[in-house]
Protein backbone atom coordinates (compact mmCIF):
# COMPACT_ATOMS: atom_id res chain seq x y z
CA UNK A 1 0.00 0.00 0.00
CA UNK A 2 1.77 3.11 -1.25
CA UNK A 3 1.90 6.00 1.11
CA UNK A 4 2.06 9.66 0.14
CA UNK A 5 4.65 10.23 -2.56
CA UNK A 6 6.14 13.57 -3.51
CA UNK A 7 8.35 14.63 -6.39
CA UNK A 8 10.95 15.81 -6.85
CA UNK A 9 12.80 15.21 -3.56
CA UNK A 10 15.10 18.19 -4.06
CA UNK A 11 14.93 21.24 -6.26
CA UNK A 12 17.09 24.32 -6.78
CA UNK A 13 15.59 27.40 -8.39
CA UNK A 14 16.58 31.01 -8.94
CA UNK A 15 14.75 34.05 -7.59
CA UNK A 16 11.88 35.05 -9.83
CA UNK A 17 11.41 31.60 -11.34
CA UNK A 18 8.34 29.41 -11.04
CA UNK A 19 8.18 25.91 -9.56
CA UNK A 20 5.72 23.02 -9.54
CA UNK A 21 5.74 20.35 -6.86
CA UNK A 22 3.75 17.14 -7.15
CA UNK A 23 2.00 14.84 -4.71
CA UNK A 24 0.23 11.51 -4.97
CA UNK A 25 -1.96 10.78 -1.95
CA UNK A 26 -2.06 7.54 -0.05
CA UNK A 27 -4.17 4.94 -1.80
CA UNK A 28 -7.84 5.49 -0.98
CA UNK A 29 -7.41 9.08 0.21
CA UNK A 30 -9.26 11.94 -1.48
CA UNK A 31 -8.04 15.08 0.30
CA UNK A 32 -4.63 16.70 -0.07
CA UNK A 33 -3.11 19.41 2.11
CA UNK A 34 0.15 21.28 1.57
CA UNK A 35 2.45 22.62 4.27
CA UNK A 36 5.61 24.71 4.18
CA UNK A 37 8.31 23.92 6.75
CA UNK A 38 11.10 26.48 6.97
CA UNK A 39 14.36 25.40 8.55
CA UNK A 40 14.04 25.04 12.30
CA UNK A 41 10.31 25.70 12.33
CA UNK A 42 7.09 23.76 12.42
CA UNK A 43 5.05 23.22 9.26
CA UNK A 44 2.73 26.04 8.17
CA UNK A 45 -0.58 25.24 6.42
CA UNK A 46 -0.74 26.50 2.84
CA UNK A 47 -4.02 25.08 1.52
CA UNK A 48 -6.17 21.98 1.20
CA UNK A 49 -7.84 20.44 -1.84
CA UNK A 50 -10.90 18.21 -2.04
CA UNK A 51 -13.00 17.38 -5.11
CA UNK A 52 -10.56 19.40 -7.20
CA UNK A 53 -11.33 22.58 -5.29
CA UNK A 54 -9.44 24.59 -2.70
CA UNK A 55 -11.34 24.14 0.58
CA UNK A 56 -9.18 26.09 2.99
CA UNK A 57 -6.21 28.39 2.72
CA UNK A 58 -3.60 29.58 5.18
CA UNK A 59 -1.84 32.95 5.23
CA UNK A 60 0.09 32.59 2.02
CA UNK A 61 0.13 35.04 -0.90
CA UNK A 62 -1.51 34.37 -4.24
CA UNK A 63 1.90 33.40 -5.63
CA UNK A 64 1.10 30.02 -4.09
CA UNK A 65 -1.51 28.14 -6.05
CA UNK A 66 -2.56 24.55 -6.39
CA UNK A 67 -4.51 22.03 -8.31
CA UNK A 68 -6.08 18.65 -7.67
CA UNK A 69 -6.73 16.16 -10.44
CA UNK A 70 -9.59 13.64 -10.76
CA UNK A 71 -7.24 10.88 -9.55
CA UNK A 72 -6.75 12.97 -6.34
CA UNK A 73 -3.11 13.80 -7.07
CA UNK A 74 -2.15 17.40 -6.50
CA UNK A 75 0.31 20.10 -7.54
CA UNK A 76 1.65 23.09 -5.69
CA UNK A 77 2.79 25.99 -7.85
CA UNK A 78 4.84 28.91 -6.63
CA UNK A 79 5.41 31.91 -8.90
CA UNK A 80 8.00 34.67 -8.66
CA UNK A 81 10.12 32.75 -6.19
CA UNK A 82 11.70 34.61 -3.29
CA UNK A 83 14.67 33.57 -1.18
CA UNK A 84 12.25 33.16 1.70
CA UNK A 85 10.39 30.44 -0.17
CA UNK A 86 13.28 28.08 0.52
CA UNK A 87 11.79 25.35 2.68
CA UNK A 88 10.65 21.75 2.89
CA UNK A 89 7.22 21.43 1.29
CA UNK A 90 5.11 18.67 2.75
CA UNK A 91 2.06 17.07 1.25
CA UNK A 92 -0.46 15.28 3.47
CA UNK A 93 -3.49 13.23 2.51
CA UNK A 94 -6.62 12.10 4.32
CA UNK A 95 -10.08 10.68 3.69
CA UNK A 96 -12.83 13.23 4.16
CA UNK A 97 -15.60 10.65 4.58
CA UNK A 98 -13.91 9.10 7.62
CA UNK A 99 -14.44 11.21 10.70
CA UNK A 100 -11.17 12.27 12.28
CA UNK A 101 -9.13 10.66 9.51
CA UNK A 102 -5.52 11.36 10.43
CA UNK A 103 -3.17 13.10 8.02
CA UNK A 104 -0.54 10.97 6.30
CA UNK A 105 2.53 12.97 5.29
CA UNK A 106 4.98 12.44 2.47
CA UNK A 107 8.72 12.90 2.88
CA UNK A 108 8.58 16.33 1.30
CA UNK A 109 10.29 18.31 -1.44
CA UNK A 110 13.28 20.39 -0.38
CA UNK A 111 13.19 23.65 -2.36
CA UNK A 112 16.22 25.91 -2.38
CA UNK A 113 15.90 29.36 -3.95
CA UNK A 114 19.18 31.09 -4.81
Amino acid sequence: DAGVTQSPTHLIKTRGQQVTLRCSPKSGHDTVSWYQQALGQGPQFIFQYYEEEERQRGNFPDRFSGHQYPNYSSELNVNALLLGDSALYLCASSLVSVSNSPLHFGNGTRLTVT
Partner: protein
Amino acid sequence: AQSVTQLDSQVPVFEEAPVELRCNYSSSVSVYLFWYVQYPNQGLQLLLKYLSGSTLVKGINGFEAEFNKSQTSFHLRKPSVHISDTAEYFCAVTPSGNYKLSFGAGTTVTVRA
Protein backbone atom coordinates in the same frame (compact mmCIF):
# COMPACT_ATOMS: atom_id res chain seq x y z
CA ALA B 1 -7.31 31.14 15.59
CA GLN B 2 -5.31 28.46 17.30
CA SER B 3 -1.67 28.53 18.36
CA VAL B 4 0.77 26.07 19.88
CA THR B 5 3.77 26.69 22.12
CA GLN B 6 6.34 23.98 22.66
CA LEU B 7 8.16 25.04 25.77
CA ASP B 8 11.45 23.25 25.10
CA SER B 9 13.35 23.66 21.86
CA GLN B 10 15.92 20.99 22.72
CA VAL B 11 15.79 18.09 25.16
CA PRO B 12 18.90 15.97 25.69
CA VAL B 13 18.24 12.70 27.51
CA PHE B 14 20.14 9.54 28.34
CA GLU B 15 19.06 6.18 26.99
CA GLU B 16 16.49 4.39 29.18
CA ALA B 17 15.66 7.62 31.03
CA PRO B 18 12.16 9.13 30.93
CA VAL B 19 11.35 12.14 28.80
CA GLU B 20 8.58 14.73 28.82
CA LEU B 21 7.93 17.21 26.03
CA ARG B 22 5.73 20.13 26.95
CA CYS B 23 3.03 21.60 24.75
CA ASN B 24 0.56 24.39 25.49
CA TYR B 25 -2.11 25.59 23.12
CA SER B 26 -4.58 28.44 22.86
CA SER B 27 -7.98 28.27 21.22
CA SER B 28 -11.44 29.74 21.68
CA VAL B 29 -13.12 26.58 20.34
CA SER B 30 -12.92 22.87 20.95
CA VAL B 31 -9.81 21.35 19.45
CA TYR B 32 -8.19 18.12 18.44
CA LEU B 33 -4.56 17.69 19.52
CA PHE B 34 -1.75 15.71 17.94
CA TRP B 35 1.89 14.79 18.38
CA TYR B 36 3.97 14.04 15.31
CA VAL B 37 7.57 12.84 15.02
CA GLN B 38 9.95 13.75 12.21
CA TYR B 39 13.11 11.73 11.63
CA PRO B 40 15.93 13.29 9.58
CA ASN B 41 15.06 13.75 5.91
CA GLN B 42 11.60 12.32 6.39
CA GLY B 43 8.03 13.55 6.63
CA LEU B 44 5.88 13.60 9.74
CA GLN B 45 4.58 10.46 11.40
CA LEU B 46 1.61 10.54 13.75
CA LEU B 47 2.48 9.43 17.29
CA LEU B 48 -0.90 9.94 18.92
CA LYS B 49 -4.00 12.10 18.92
CA TYR B 50 -6.62 13.39 21.31
CA LEU B 51 -10.10 13.87 19.90
CA SER B 52 -12.38 13.35 22.91
CA GLY B 53 -12.93 11.00 25.83
CA SER B 54 -10.14 9.81 28.09
CA THR B 55 -7.57 12.51 28.70
CA LEU B 56 -4.71 10.00 28.73
CA VAL B 57 -3.86 8.97 25.20
CA LYS B 58 -1.51 6.15 24.28
CA GLY B 59 0.33 6.16 20.99
CA ILE B 60 2.94 4.24 19.08
CA ASN B 61 6.46 3.39 20.22
CA GLY B 62 5.53 3.61 23.92
CA PHE B 63 4.57 7.30 23.90
CA GLU B 64 1.60 8.72 25.76
CA ALA B 65 0.16 12.18 26.30
CA GLU B 66 -2.27 13.76 28.71
CA PHE B 67 -4.80 16.39 27.75
CA ASN B 68 -5.41 19.01 30.43
CA LYS B 69 -8.19 21.36 29.42
CA SER B 70 -7.88 23.70 32.38
CA GLN B 71 -4.17 24.21 31.74
CA THR B 72 -4.57 23.99 27.95
CA SER B 73 -1.72 21.53 27.79
CA PHE B 74 -0.96 18.31 25.97
CA HIS B 75 2.38 17.04 27.25
CA LEU B 76 4.06 14.01 25.68
CA ARG B 77 5.86 11.40 27.78
CA LYS B 78 7.83 8.22 27.40
CA PRO B 79 9.03 6.29 30.46
CA SER B 80 12.19 4.92 28.86
CA VAL B 81 13.73 6.27 25.66
CA HIS B 82 15.90 4.54 23.08
CA ILE B 83 18.59 5.88 20.80
CA SER B 84 16.10 5.50 17.95
CA ASP B 85 13.82 8.10 19.58
CA THR B 86 16.25 10.81 18.53
CA ALA B 87 14.12 13.04 16.31
CA GLU B 88 12.11 16.26 16.08
CA TYR B 89 8.73 16.22 17.79
CA PHE B 90 5.85 18.50 16.88
CA CYS B 91 2.69 19.28 18.77
CA ALA B 92 -0.27 20.34 16.62
CA VAL B 93 -3.84 21.56 17.11
CA THR B 94 -6.87 21.91 14.88
CA PRO B 95 -10.45 23.00 15.52
CA SER B 96 -12.66 19.98 16.02
CA GLY B 97 -13.66 18.51 12.68
CA ASN B 98 -11.14 20.57 10.75
CA TYR B 99 -7.93 19.44 9.05
CA LYS B 100 -6.00 22.71 9.13
CA LEU B 101 -3.27 21.86 11.61
CA SER B 102 -1.35 24.54 13.48
CA PHE B 103 2.05 23.25 14.56
CA GLY B 104 4.43 24.27 17.29
CA ALA B 105 8.04 25.09 16.49
CA GLY B 106 9.20 21.62 17.46
CA THR B 107 11.33 20.00 20.15
CA THR B 108 14.56 18.27 19.22
CA VAL B 109 15.13 15.16 21.32
CA THR B 110 18.65 13.79 21.40
CA VAL B 111 19.10 10.46 23.14
CA ARG B 112 22.62 9.63 24.29
CA ALA B 113 24.01 6.29 25.37
